[in-house]
C-alpha cells in the first residue's frame, strides 16, 4: 500500500505539465529530472549511475549554451528515472521467484 501511494505520487510528478508539454526552461527540465531521481532514490533505494551522468551532461550542455542538447539530455535522464521506477515496481515481488526452493 505504501509502495502504491509512493508510486502514485511519483506518477503525478511525472505527469506534471512541465514534463509532458515540454514547457518551462531547460533548467526547469534538468531540475525536474534531478528531483525525480532523488525522490525515487529516497522512496525505493534504487539509483542508476547513468542517470546521474546524464543529468550532469545536461547541466554541462546548458552551461555551454547548448540549450537543445541540454533539454534532450534532461528528457533522457527523466526516461532513465522512469525505467528505474519500473524496475523497483517489478522487483518488489519478483525477486522472491529467484530463491531456490
Amino acid at each position, binding site marked *: 500500500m505504501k509502495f502504491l501511494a509512493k508510486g502514485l505520487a511519483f506518477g503525478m510528478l511525472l505527469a506534471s505539465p512541465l514534463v509532458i508539454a515540454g514547457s518551462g526552461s531547460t533548467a526547469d527540465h534538468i531540475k525536474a529530472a534531478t528531483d525525480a531521481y532523488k525522490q525515487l532514490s529516497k522512496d525505493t533505494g534504487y539509483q542508476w*549511475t547513468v542517470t*546521474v551522468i546524464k543529468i550532469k551532461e545536461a547541466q554541462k550542455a546548458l552551461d555551454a549554451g547548448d540549450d537543445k542538447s541540454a533539454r534532450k539530455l534532461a528528457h533522457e535522464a527523466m526516461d*532513465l528515472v522512469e525505467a528505474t521506477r519500473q524496475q523497483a515496481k517489478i522487483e518488489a515481488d*519478483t525477486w522472491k521467484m529467484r530463491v531456490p526452493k
Partner: protein
Amino acid sequence: MKTIIRGTLGTLGLGLALSVSAGPVEDQAAFQKYYENKFPNTPVMDFQNGVYSILPEAREQWEAIEEFPPYEIAIENGEKLYHSKFANGKSLADCFGPEGAVRGQYPFWDKDRGMVITMERAVNECREANGEKPYGWKKGKIADVTAYMSFNSRGQEVKVEIPSDDPRALAAYEEGKEQFYTKRGQLNFACADCHMLTAGNLYRADTTSPAFGHATSWPVFRSKWQSMGTLHRRFAGCHTNIRANPYKAQGTEYSNLEYFVTYMSNGLEFNGPAARK
C-alpha cells in the same frame, strides 16, 4: 461448493505463502543444494575457493600465485598495525586477543544494538573506543589489519547465527536475502543472476564465481585492484558494474547482505586472505 472453492483457494494461498517465506535453515539447505547440483564435480568444502573451485584451468595458475601470495605484505602490515599502541597505551590486541583470531565470530547479530556487526566494524569501534580515528572501510589499513586477523583465523568454521528470540535478526537476514536476489542497475542484474543462476558462465573474459563460499576469503588481493579490499568494496564494485549506485560500505544494506551471504556459507571454513582476479 463455495466452501470447497474457498478452502481450496485458502490452501493454495497458504502453500504459496509458505513457498516464499522459508526460514534461514531451509534457505541455506536449498542454496547449498543448488550449487552441489550445478557443480557436481566440486567437493562441497572446495566452494570456499571461489571461482577456482569450478575452473580447473585457472586453478593451477591460482595455486602458483598462492605460493608467493600478493597479500603477504598486507598481513605483515596488518600485524604491525594490530600490535601498534594507541595513544592510551592499548592496542587492537586488547579487544581481540593476542593474535586477533576471531574471524569465525563475525558477522553476528548484536541484540543490544539491533544490528549486524562485521569484523571491520568491530575493528573500527575498538579504535574509536580507545580514542583513535576509524580506518576507511574499503581498503588500506582496514584491509591490512583484517588480513592479519583472517590469516590467524584460517580454518575456523563459518557458523553465523540468526537468534530466534530476536525478530529483528531475521528481518536483517531477510533484507540481505532480498538484496541478493533483487535486480538493480541499468543492466538489470541481481547478485543471484551472475553468482547463482549463471555462475560458471563467461561474462566477457571472466567466469562468474559461485556465491556459495563468497564470504569466506576476505579481505582479498584482486589483480584488477592491484591492492587489498574488503567484501564491501567488492559489493560496491559489483553494483557499479551493473550501473547501480553502490550503498555505503558498512551501511545497513551491505552489512545485512554480508549477514545473508555468510550465513549461506555456513559449514565452510574461513580461508582469507586470498588472491583473486
